[in-house]
């Protein structure tokens, strides 16, 4: 088990190095960093001084290593657009994105599994068929349209819920939370539904098809042949086996919740990392783009590693050392 985790960790480090290289190349080769920092009317001596100061005259490999080591220490340079350290901006924006991702991820996973199991068990029932048809519309419906639709119904027409922003937030050290105030919670509702709906549909469809596959397996037949209660067959035997393959995809879905957060945050003007990234692309703010890329990569890699570890708790077949001991 440890060997497997270590191998996966090594792969993850490789991915991060590649991403770092991309980020570094963006930083170094798109536009001239000096121009971006000093503007067009800089004196030649200032340029030379800054070039030496920034280490831009060193060999590329050395620059790459320096870039990585400062990134590891949380130094992503200065935003071209805001003129402030990127790290500060990210830290300011991260809580909004993470809280939104947490809420919509929880919604997507719990409702996705419940609906998936339901539509698999009642495969030919009317409700299940209706849910499946709706879900196909859900998959075809772009996230931003869902958001706009929700804003139209609940903000414009009914006036129940806010259409943009986080509401009032409370500061807990460097973290700002929207969980503590009424307006903060209300503001969370529409964005988290928007963000979670698509993922929920995907998870539901996946759970359904995996569960149908599992229900065809011999051990389910054998469980039935032993006269186990229907509930036991579905939830103890079928569901747990369904969740093994579903776990990986759910892990990846959590990753894309962060990515699709870009869209949702734009629709709802949610002051998180995604909105920051969109603005960075519009204004070609390379340091912010590069830092966002690296931050997201680290999150993805961590999620994947977590999923791998989780596997060992779910699937006994993967606990190799155990089976060796008793073989």
């Amino acid at each position: 088990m440890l060997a497997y985790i270590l191998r996966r960790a090594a792969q993850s480090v490789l991915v991060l190095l590649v991403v770092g290289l991309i980020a570094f190349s963006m930083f170094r080769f798109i536009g001239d960093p000096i121009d971006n920092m000093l503007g067009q009317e800089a004196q030649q001596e200032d340029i030379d001084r800054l070039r030496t100061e920034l280490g831009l005259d060193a060999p590329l490999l050395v620059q790459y290593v320096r870039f990585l080591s400062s990134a590891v220490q949380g130094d992503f340079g200065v935003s071209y657009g805001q003129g402030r350290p990127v790290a500060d901006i990210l830290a300011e924006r991260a809580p909004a994105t993470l809280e939104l991702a947490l809420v919509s991820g929880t919604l997507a996973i719990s409702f996705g599994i419940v609906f998936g199991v339901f539509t698999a068990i009642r495969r030919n029932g009317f409700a299940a068929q209706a849910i499946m048809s709706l879900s196909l519309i859900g998959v075809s419906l772009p996230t931003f349209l869902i958001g706009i639709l929700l804003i139209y119904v609940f903000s414009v027409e009914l006036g129940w819920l806010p259409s943009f922003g986080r509401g009032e937030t409370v500061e807990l050290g460097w973290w700002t939370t929207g969980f503590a105030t009424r307006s903060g919670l209300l503001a969370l509702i529409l964005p988290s539904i928007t963000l979670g709906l698509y993922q929920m549909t995907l998870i539901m469809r996946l759970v359904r098809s995996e569960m149908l596959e599992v229900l065809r397996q011999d051990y389910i037949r054998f469980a039935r042949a032993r006269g186990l209660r229907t509930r036991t067959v579905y939830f103890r035997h079928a569901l747990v086996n369904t969740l093994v393959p579903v776990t990986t995809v759910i892990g990846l879905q959590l990753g894309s919740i962060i990515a699709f957060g870009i869209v949702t945050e734009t629709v709802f003007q949610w002051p998180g990392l995604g909105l920051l990234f969109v603005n960075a692309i519009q204004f070609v703010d390379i340091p912010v783009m590069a830092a966002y890329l690296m931050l997201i990569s680290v999150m993805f890699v961590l999620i994947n590693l977590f999923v791998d570890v989780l596997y060992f708790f779910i699937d006994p077949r993967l606990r190799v050392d155990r089976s060796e001991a008793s073989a």
Partner: protein
Amino acid sequence: MSTSIGLRLRNALDSDFAYLFLRSPVAVLSAFVVIVLVLAAIFAPLISPQDPFNPIELNLMNGFTPPGTPNAFTGESFWLGTDDQGRDVFSTILHGMRISLFVGVSAVSFALLLGVTLGLLAGYVGGWTDTIIMRVADVQLTFPAILVAMLIFGIAKGITPVEYRDQMAIWVLILAIGLSDWVQFARVVRGATLVEKGREYVQAAQLIGRRPGAIMLRHILPNVLSPVLVIATISLALAIIAEATLSFLGVGAPPTQPSLGTLIRIGQGFLFSGEWWILLFPSLTLLALALSVNLLGDWLRDALNPRLK
């Protein structure tokens, strides 16, 4: 080659395929919608009542005309109403759909060419070629396509000189969506190639001295056509949505060449002021387009691969 494709086509039409197609109302309906929308997009310049991007044809007085009712000043009437600049919404939708479909089809074609080529190479040549291609694919798969596309768009935008950015935007968009989507094609083709490579007829072709390129094209490629077709259809729906999303975010088609996504972005600005038609009709068009292509792809997957049912 062409005769064998013709033969395949005829066989396909005689087979269960056509039977299943005609038996499925969903498939027939969505195919009909797709055909109508595609034709409307192709012939947009002929069908649309005005050229929405020719300032001479526009009259600012016509701005904000609601659908179906005559304008208070000019008395002109517009099917789906007009936007703030007096552009006919119906015409902008036709032209917007043209751009959306052009970007979608081009991006998928690009992804298909790239993915099939790399997949064939990885599967047939193997060794280091295989390792490198599939490693890149794995890394890319770790990230959602939309993020990859945005990043490519951002980088390309950074490289392009400011004055060319709007002109290049459509091509950059195609490149970005295409590059974010090749992996699926490559994986399927590689897998099928590995299977076919072991078959005796391929070994026989190798023995009689056929060149690898010819073997890949004539023997292996025909065997992967149906999964590639399914992936291409589903990818098209995803590409249309991806394009709309990017344009909606303001990192896609520029306002000078608005796609459906750009139109929705513009329309969202009028959500609170009551001009609902500027937003609603482009949204419905996008939904109809994405949904019918998606349904068609879904049906195709079931029809070509009964095992998955």
